[in-house]
């Protein structure tokens, strides 16, 4: 079996190496995205006071720290018996979270992916939806599409300002505390955000249109590019199955939309999910227990969420979802590149939720914290920008953390990313163990669609280069290529 390795993978958050394994006939048998760093958050928070955890764990990431902050805070709510948050606390956290979704989705789409969608669509095999190297950054977008580039930057800024107003800082704030929040929303902050909220929704609709047009214009190429059938998992709103990103119940469906898990309370996630360890990576492989590790893996994130939810509870985004679903005739969408469109529909939804929340007087309430009987174990699950995020803790009578398990979004998407790489490799290699520019680009574009945060997934530190190796049936490296930076020569 031959193996192809791609390293480094750029414009993803983290550090990656890819190996492509060939069988005796020279066909692609398997692809592996290796995560070779280890950070060990689950270990080093052991012994720390539980109220420190929501602030410590957000240091996992500078892109979506709010997700870790809130997932941990939700778990700690239960530890202090305060999971029935006051309306002010619940809405402040929700505002913080949707601000986070808004800024992260804007960052991914405009700063990381839009060069591929805007410049990489000449249809040539070598491009594989990848922009020419010199244009692979947001500044190139700003130059060629000044209005769009400007909007992308300002949309991210708006999301960051929502976070600042609720958490005290744009990155690594302290808004959520066990049982509630430490502030309400000042009238000044509300008015400052409210004056831009409608503009953000208008720009979000434009972003949805860009992603939609890209998808519809390249429907045939996209339908097969890194595409594969999978199960899908996310939180949904308990009573009606609506899209819900802050607090809900777990729902999983298969590739055709058949329900696999429904209404599962977050505290009972272990009844449905398990994790497999493989020796070549620090990233685990979660799966649905009923289907086992081989068939039980699933996608998470924007695409999965639009597949699992019954509707989006905001009018503009719901209209966009209906259009999105019409393409697959109301069946789940299993196309990797459809993540971009789905992500922009969520961006629009986040904009609508933020606007509606800002009009809610509960945000200026004074009742911030609630408590009840203590518990020793708790789970907090949230839909982070990249997908389902699970935090699970045990806390002893001295208030010290004795167990921590984190299953982050990119970990759920581990097998899907391997599948996407395998499909790209199968389509590109054609029995020649040669790592072409087209293969490198294809792998990067496919992985980037999942918006992976590899630093979170292994709780790893540092920037992530990409190395690709082709390994033959006997384990020998047949080809290797290393890319240290996207602007470097190959």
């Amino acid at each position, binding site marked *: 079996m031959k193996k192809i390795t791609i390293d480094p993978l750029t414009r993803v958050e983290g550090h990656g190496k890819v190996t492509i394994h060939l069988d005796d006939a020279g066909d692609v048998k398997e692809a592996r995205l290796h995560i070779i760093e280890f950070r060990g958050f689950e270990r080093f928070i052991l012994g720390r006071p539980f109220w420190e955890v929501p*602030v410590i764990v957000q240091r996992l990431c500078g892109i979506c720290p709010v997700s870790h902050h809130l997932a941990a805070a939700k778990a700690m709510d239960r530890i202090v018996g305060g999971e029935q948050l006051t309306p002010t606390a619940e809405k402040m956290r929700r505002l913080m979270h949707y601000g986070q979704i808004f800024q992260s989705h804007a960052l991914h789409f405009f700063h990381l992916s839009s060069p591929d969608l805007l410049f990489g669509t000449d249809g040539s095999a070598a491009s594989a939806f990848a922009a020419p190297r010199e244009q692979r950054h947001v500044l190139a977008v700003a130059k060629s599409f000044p209005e769009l580039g400007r909007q992308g930057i300002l949309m991210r800024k708006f999301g960051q300002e929502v976070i600042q107003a609720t958490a*005290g800082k744009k990155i690594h704030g*302290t808004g959520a505390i066990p049982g509630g929040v430490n502030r309400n929303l000042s009238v000044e902050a509300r008015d400052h955000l409210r004056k831009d909220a409608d503009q953000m929704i208008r720009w979000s609709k434009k972003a949805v249109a860009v992603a939609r047009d890209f998808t519809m214009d390249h429907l045939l190429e996209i339908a097969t590019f890194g595409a594969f059938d999978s199960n899908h998992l996310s939180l949904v709103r308990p009573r009606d199955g609506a899209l819900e990103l802050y607090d809900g119940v777990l729902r999983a469906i298969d590739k055709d939309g058949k329900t696999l898990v429904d209404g599962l309370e977050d505290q009972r996630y272990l009844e449905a999910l398990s994790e497999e360890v493989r020796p070549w990576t620090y990233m685990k492989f979660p799966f649905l227990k009923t289907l086992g590790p081989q068939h039980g893996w699933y996608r998470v994130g924007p695409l999965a969420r639009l597949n699992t939810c019954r509707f989006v509870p905001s009018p503009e985004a719901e209209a966009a979802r209906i259009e999105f679903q019409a393409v697959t005739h109301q069946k789940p969408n299993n196309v990797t590149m459809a993540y971009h469109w789905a992500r922009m529909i969520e961006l629009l939804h986040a904009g609508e939720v933020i606007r509606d929340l800002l009009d809610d007087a509960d945000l200026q309430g004074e009742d911030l914290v609630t408590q009840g009987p203590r518990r020793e174990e708790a789970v907090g699950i949230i839909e982070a920008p990249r997908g389902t995020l699970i935090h699970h803790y045990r806390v002893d009578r001295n208030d010290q953390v004795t167990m921590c398990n984190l299953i982050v979004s990119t970990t759920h998407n581990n097998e899907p990313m391997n599948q996407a790489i395998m499909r790209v490799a199968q389509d590109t290699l054609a029995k020649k163990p040669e790592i072409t520019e087209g293969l490198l680009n294809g792998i990067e574009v496919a992985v980037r669609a999942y918006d992976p945060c590899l630093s979170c997934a292994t709780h790893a530190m540092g920037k992530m280069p990409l190395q690709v190796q082709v390994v033959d049936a006997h384990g020998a490296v047949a080809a290797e290529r290393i890319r240290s930076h996207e602007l470097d020569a190959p």
Partner: protein
Amino acid sequence: MKHIEFTIDGKTMTAKPGQTILKAAEAHGVYIPHLCAYKDLIPHGSCRVCSVRCNGRIQAACVQTVSEGMIVENDTPEIHEFRKAILDMLFVEGNHFCMFCEKSGQCELQALAYRFGITAPQFPLLEPERELDMSHPDVYLDHNRCILCGRCVRVSQDLDNKNCFQFVGRGHRKRLKVNGEALAETDLRVTDAVVASCPVGALMKKRVGYAIPIGERHFDQQPIGHAIEEKNS
């Protein structure tokens, strides 16, 4: 009462007999950075952050009393660098992670670092292994953040009339210990004055955490020393 005349950085001031340089300076709106000095406790002179050049010699302003005609150098580049080095040593010999410490924004050591423009350590981090004592139901002691200023030792004795804390060892082996195997064995109560006396995040009330929002914490409002310097402006 006869007043004593002296100068700080060339400016003539008066002090009461027996008054320390630190107290006399504060009375005139001159802030001398300090850590171990605390309210009306008998001064300790252990942290040396308040070091000034006094008649040509380095002295701790919190213990040195003013004498007639004394020349004190406080706000000079030399003293600034001297204090900065002391603060830096306090950081590197412990495990101070401001980014997630719940004392952040309320911490006197952090506030002094900001005042002195310390953004990164100039000495190698020692990264010692220190204990966290969570045994007490309402208060915890994180030795990682202890700077051995001795405030807790003195406040427990002098203000609370207890003896919950003591130093053991000497030199670089000096450590803060509690009167018993762990904090839970002492007669410490959460209402004791000592609980609020720690300048850093070592002795902390439990389950308070990050209750004060960023922007409203003590040193978010004004830099350390501001309240004293305001008198002078």
